[in-house]
């Protein structure tokens, strides 16, 4: 046992002290936060530019009701025909021109007719958001006017208006909303992808580490001191610890950096609060986002991630170790890498295409129990809520398979590390199992 500890420590320290590892581990969180900043900067730049719009209001209805906002500035002109209006607008180099024709009878306006005759004229077509924002402004003004002219009381209408936001409740009594679904899907994808990535990256790291000992021929000295199985397990555990370290540093550093950045640049909730009008919606959106986030079975996700992550990494790690031992070079490893990575890829695709449709459907349920795909598919399902007993069954299958695979991998490893100069076939591998 003491030996295994030494091996784990060496494996861990050499990889953690590796310059490449340090650079990648420390830079990725900054990259993520940087990218986030960049995107928010871009969208800020975009929205910062104020659209200048000339409104030729021959009806005289809109001047006091169509108000400029932070992003759209309306300037009003009257008594111009369409051609004159166009010329003036072009001279002013406006972003767009709204032309409202004059009305016949100021006392008795047909708002429906008027609404049909309003035109938006521009050189290049304005953005959809701009158009819909103008449309909704005009709509509101005309509707209100139309109500009033029909003798309806605006106040009464406002008070009578009913807003619906369906409250979704599960049978366990947990409340959820639409944003929950999106969040669950996003979380599931994130976890599944993370598992997929780490199994691949750290699996090949184990492979390379085995191969290094083989090609540098130090292997014979090591296994004259320790059992090959000890060495293999030490490698797998040591490398998995490196993976944990990386995930831990990434999470912690991303949190720290994003907190720092938001406090320096002031991109925080306080700014969101200072925005007006529809920002009440934004605020409540953030609130629902957080309440949805905390609605997720976070503790379950966390614990399940740790266990499925370890088991998945160990399972694939031992297979990758066996491949590393069987071959002489990384190029030779490819022929065995492909069949090994197939289940991972299948798991990812099954997860992406079936889980969000029906998380407890037959296919996701089956694939979240098959040991080679279960770490990924199960992690994608868990945010939607999977009964604990199902998780435990899946995990038990995974762990049992891991032990079987380790036995099998250790046999190949034991023989393979001392075999040089031949590219083994599957038949050879089968023979080695019996040595």
């Amino acid at each position, binding site marked *: 046992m003491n*030996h295994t500890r*030494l*091996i784990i420590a*060496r494996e861990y320290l*050499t990889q953690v002290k590796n310059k490449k590892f340090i650079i990648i581990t420390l830079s990725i969180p900054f990259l993520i936060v940087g990218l986030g900043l960049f995107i928010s900067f871009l969208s800020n730049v975009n929205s910062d530019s104020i659209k200048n719009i000339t409104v030729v209001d021959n009806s005289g209805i809109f001047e006091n009701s169509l108000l400029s906002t932070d992003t759209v500035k309306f300037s009003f002109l009257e008594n111009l025909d369409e051609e004159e209006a166009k010329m003036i607008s072009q001279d002013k180099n406006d972003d767009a021109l709204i032309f409202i024709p004059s009305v016949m009878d100021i006392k008795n306006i047909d708002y429906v007719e008027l609404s049909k005759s309003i035109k938006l004229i521009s050189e290049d077509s304005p953005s959809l958001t701009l158009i819909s924002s103008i449309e909704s402004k005009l709509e509101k003004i005309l509707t209100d006017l139309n109500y009033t002219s029909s003798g309806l009381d605006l106040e009464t209408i406002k008070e009578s208006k009913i807003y619906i936001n369906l409250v979704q409740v599960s049978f366990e009594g947990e409340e959820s909303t639409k944003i929950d679904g999106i969040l669950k899907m996003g979380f599931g994808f994130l976890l599944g992808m993370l598992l997929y990535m780490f199994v691949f990256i750290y699996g090949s790291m184990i492979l390379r580490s085995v191969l*290094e*000992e083989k090609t*540098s*021929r*130090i*292997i*014979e*000295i*090591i*296994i*004259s*001191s*320790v*059992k090959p199985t000890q060495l293999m397990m030490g490698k797998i555990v040591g490398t998995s610890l490196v993976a944990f370290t990386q995930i831990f540093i990434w999470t912690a550093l991303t949190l720290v950096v994003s907190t720092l950045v938001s406090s320096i640049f002031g991109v925080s909730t306080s700014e969101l609060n200072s925005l007006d009008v529809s920002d009440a919606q934004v605020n409540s959106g953030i609130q629902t986002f957080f309440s949805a986030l905390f609605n997720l079975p976070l503790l379950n996700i966390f614990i399940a991630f740790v266990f499925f992550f370890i088991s998945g990494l160990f399972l694939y790690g031992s297979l990758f170790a066996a491949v590393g031992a069987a071959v002489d070079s990384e190029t030779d490893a490819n022929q065995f890498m492909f069949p090994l990575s197939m289940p991972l890829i299948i798991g990812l695709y099954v997860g992406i295409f079936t889980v969000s449709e029906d998380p407890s459907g037959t296919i996701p349920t089956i694939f979240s129990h098959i040991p080679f795909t279960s770490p990924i598919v199960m992690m994608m399902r868990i945010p939607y809520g999977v009964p604990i007993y199902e998780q435990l069954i899946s995990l038990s299958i995974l762990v049992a398979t891991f032990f079987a695979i380790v036995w099998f991998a250790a046999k190949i490893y034991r023989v393979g590390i*001392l075999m040089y100069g031949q590219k083994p076939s599957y038949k050879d591998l089968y*023979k080695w199992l*019996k*040595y």
Partner: protein
Amino acid sequence: MDNLLSIDSVSKHFGDYKALNNVSVDIPKGSIFGLLGPNGAGKTTLIRIINQISIPDTGKVIFKGENLSQKHIRNIGYLPEERGLYKSMKVGEQALYLAQLKGMSRVDAKKQLKYWFDKFQIGEWWDKKIVELSKGMAQKVQFIVTVLHKPSLLIFDEPFSGFDPINANIIKDEILKLRDDGSTVIFSTHRMESVEELCDHIALIHKSNKVLDGNLNDIKRQYKTNTFEVGLVCSEQRVIKQLINAKFNSVDASFKSLGKELKLNITLEPNQTSNELLNFLSSNAEVNHFMEVVPSANDIFIQTINNQK
């Protein structure tokens, strides 16, 4: 004599291939034991069995009177033929790691390493990586790692390969010193001159079978043919030759000498003695060279292998 290690009827298969066939070898305590054999004879397999890298199919290995087991690992030091160290790990760190795997404590390992690094004057390599060292330098590090934990059994597979003559000599002296300090050495090599120089016991393995083993001098005695190499200074070489041939079996010989004497290899019959021969020769000519032909390890090796064919 006590045996440190007894290999008792060991066989090992790899699939259909029989790597060792019922091999028994005793390795006396305190000896330098030459494990000889052509390439692919099964030496490495036997060494791996002693190192518990492979497990024999049948037979057993007795170490210090007990069945060989994991606890004996720290009593064995092994220098494989294919040398190797972690290329990008620092020398000191690496040596410490390997020593700890052999069961040494970190403190103890550090102390011993300092001793050996000082002895070989390589203290400044401690923080270098193996890739920065020459092949010979790496070999030295590897030798230190092998002997560091003071094992009672040392196994060297071609220990001198990769060393220049000066360093090979240093290593040879160290091996002898380790033997004098009580270690037993198994020495696998193709270089017969180093067998001649170092080994007191040998075993010869050929095609998975042991074909010869024992004390090197006993074996030589067994293989000698009672042949004597003689040099005779005389004027009538042909007459003398006829005279000798009447009584003894002789063939022309060649060896380096200063004069142009008659050179012969004379083989005695079982009833003839060397004194008889010497008296006969000295009464007929002037003897300036008289030496028993003792087979070299090289001769024995080649002869035994050829006899097997």
